[in-house]
């Protein structure tokens, strides 16, 4: 009888703190726990009693990597609860801000966190010693995203200009000009990035994923849409964001401060770039679609390692679309639409760089938050990541442990899990029961 334990004490090059423990006996995996030991921060509990204007700023603090995603989902959920809607140029400005975050976050992941895996470096900085040109290109891309967020939101992390109903102040066209200038160069970098990462050596792995993403009639959905699910081959089914609680249920597992999500009773679905691409690739900008085809992505990509290519394509799409919006930008007439609080429930979802991010709020008679519920992407993906790891390890258990550990870390990084986000969601109905 042989016992084997693979341990990764602290996952590196992921956002937040996690660890992995795998137990095997007689060549069979008996336990696999992706542990999220990110300390619990109790956001949903803290949100109770706060004003209806506060969740965008407060929930931004859940994650410094994708604060805009939190702000957008929160705003939309509250606007929905209050019967308000942000449309037209103000919505475009929100999209622009969001594209900035996509570019920034994806560039960070592609260049500084993920690419070193394929090229055999410990870090982006180590990679810069040999390939400074590449790292500089990545940093320039990242900076282009950050500048766009800064021009609209004030700063890249926890932007200050986002408000329920729109913005506090809308930037003048001339204030956006430098960011647009930089984006033009970034678009070229993004094109080069797709070609570059497409040439990496990818293990030949495919999983039969069940995907979940937002879908929007006119856009490669980021800011809003309906929820669609499917396997990429067959037809998709969908539901309104407001029906989310009927379909997605979370449960707590003992080894983690995060919860696992189930979709219509089944665990292990995937959200994020692969899901978006599989369900919405037809809506990518023409330039991004071409680049994806040239990179050999096909219509659906089921190889998690190729996630890096999809991310690169999404950077390109974001640059391209942001430029289109910037070129047509006319300063909105007013910075925000009025949002009068009223008792009720609102749901909001948007596509964070790592996947669908859902918020739900119930406001009380005084316009204060009575309940809050947040389901971040990594929590949804955790079970699926564990499944990926089982598939990866099962045939390789004879390999030395440190080699296995290395393989696992890479497989986890494929999904760019943002562990900071995953440590704080719940479903009130479950807990109330």
């Amino acid at each position, binding site marked *: 009888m042989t016992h084997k334990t693979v341990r990764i004490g*602290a*996952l*590196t*090059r*992921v*956002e*937040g*703190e996690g660890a992995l423990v795998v137990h095997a006996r007689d060549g069979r995996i008996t336990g696999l726990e992706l542990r999220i*030991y*990110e*300390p*619990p*921060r*109790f*956001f949903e*509990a*803290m949100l*109770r009693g*706060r*004003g209806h204007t506060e969740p965008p*700023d407060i929930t931004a*603090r*859940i*994650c*410094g*990597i994708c*604060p805009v995603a939190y702000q957008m989902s929160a705003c939309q959920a509250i606007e929905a609860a209050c019967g308000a809607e942000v449309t037209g140029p103000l919505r475009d400005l929100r999209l622009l801000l969001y594209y900035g975050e996509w570019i920034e976050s994806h560039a960070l992941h592609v260049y*500084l*966190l993920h690419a*070193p895996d394929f090229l055999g470096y*410990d*870090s*982006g900085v*180590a990679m*810069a010693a040999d390939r400074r040109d590449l*790292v*500089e290109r990545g*940093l*320039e891309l*990242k*900076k282009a995203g*950050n500048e766009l967020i800064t021009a609209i939101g*004030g*700063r*890249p*992390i*926890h932007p*200050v200009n986002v408000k329920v109903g729109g*913005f*506090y*102040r809308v930037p003048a066209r001339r204030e956006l000009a430098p960011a647009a200038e930089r984006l033009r160069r970034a678009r070229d970098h993004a094109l080069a990035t797709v070609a570059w990462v497409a040439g990496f050596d990818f293990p030949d792995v495919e999983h039969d994923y069940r995907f979940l993403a937002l879908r929007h009639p006119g856009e490669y959905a980021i800011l809003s849409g309906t929820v669609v699910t499917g396997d990429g081959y067959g037809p998709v089914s969908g539901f309104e964001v407001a029906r989310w609680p009927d379909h997605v249920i979370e449960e*707590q597992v*003992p080894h983690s401060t995060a919860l696992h999500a189930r979709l219509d009773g089944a665990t292990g679905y995937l959200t994020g770039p692969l899901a978006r691409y599989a369900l919405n690739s037809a809506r990518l900008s023409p330039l991004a679609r071409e680049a994806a085809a040239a990179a050999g992505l096909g219509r659906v990509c089921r190889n998690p390692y190729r996630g890096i290519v999809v991310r690169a394509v999404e950077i390109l799409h974001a640059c391209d679309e942001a430029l289109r919006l910037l070129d047509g930008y006319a300063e909105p007439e007013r*910075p925000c639409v009025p949002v009068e609080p009223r008792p009720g429930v609102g749901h909001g979802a948007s596509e964070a760089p790592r996947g669908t991010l859902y918020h739900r709020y119930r406001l009380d008679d005084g316009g204060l938050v009575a309940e809050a519920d947040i389901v971040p992407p990594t929590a949804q993906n955790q079970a699926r990541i564990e499944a990926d790891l089982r598939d990866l390890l099962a045939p390789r258990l004879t390999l030395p442990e440190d080699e296995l550990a290395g393989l696992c*870390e890479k497989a986890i990084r494929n999904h760019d899990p943002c562990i*900071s986000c995953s440590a*704080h969601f*719940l479903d*009130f109905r479950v*807990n109330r029961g």
Partner: protein
Amino acid sequence: MVDRAPRLAVWKFASCDGCQLTFLDCEDELLSVAARVEIAYFLEASSAPGPGPYDLSLVEGSITTPEDLERIRHVRRVSKRLVTIGACATAGGIQALRDFADVKEFAAVVYARPDYIATLDRSTPVAAHVPVDFELRGCPPDRHQLLEVISAFLAGRRPVVPAHSVCVECKARGNACVMVAHGTPCLGPVTQAGCGALCPTFNRGCYGCFGPMESPNHASLNHWMRGLGMSTPELVRIYRTYHATTEPFRRAAEEAQESGEEE
């Protein structure tokens, strides 16, 4: 003595990762910094953590679990200088709102099995447990200030991180006061500078994310902001966000409550 590059470590406790990301957001300077210092421990950015001791440790996040309490002592032991960055590490962060509530009830709201969750009753700043050489404020800290702390450390000078109010930067930036001109309540006068007066620049009142300035006069400001239409609960909430448990903001919220009762 052999001249070697100073060794830098970046540590994370309960936080959103934003402060560390601020470091990675220094796109123009990152590689120059990496050339001057050895980034010896930075889990988010590197899978080759070098062993201690470290010349400079940047610590993000607050102390909220029994294990972290142990870990921060370890960090102190292996660090020559320890600089805390961000609201969580310097003030307990937003998660310190648990201090005003019952953490067990909080856990019960969030988790079906709160017994699985190991957590402390309070979220505390690093300085509550170990000596800290410098505290850099902000939720998140300002990129330029972060670089300034690192370069001041390298040059052996006191970092240029003034403790005066946001107003100083607001005026140097050429803003008109949003409170005076628009009647928008603003915490700028009681908040420490550093952000470059971002919120007023975007026509918004400061919400205090850099924490209390050196000599905050919240009683006077509260009185004025009431005149601008803020209610007692609104006043209490605005101080109870990212720096809620710092002494001045804690007192500011209490003052608002007390003066609210008088009226």
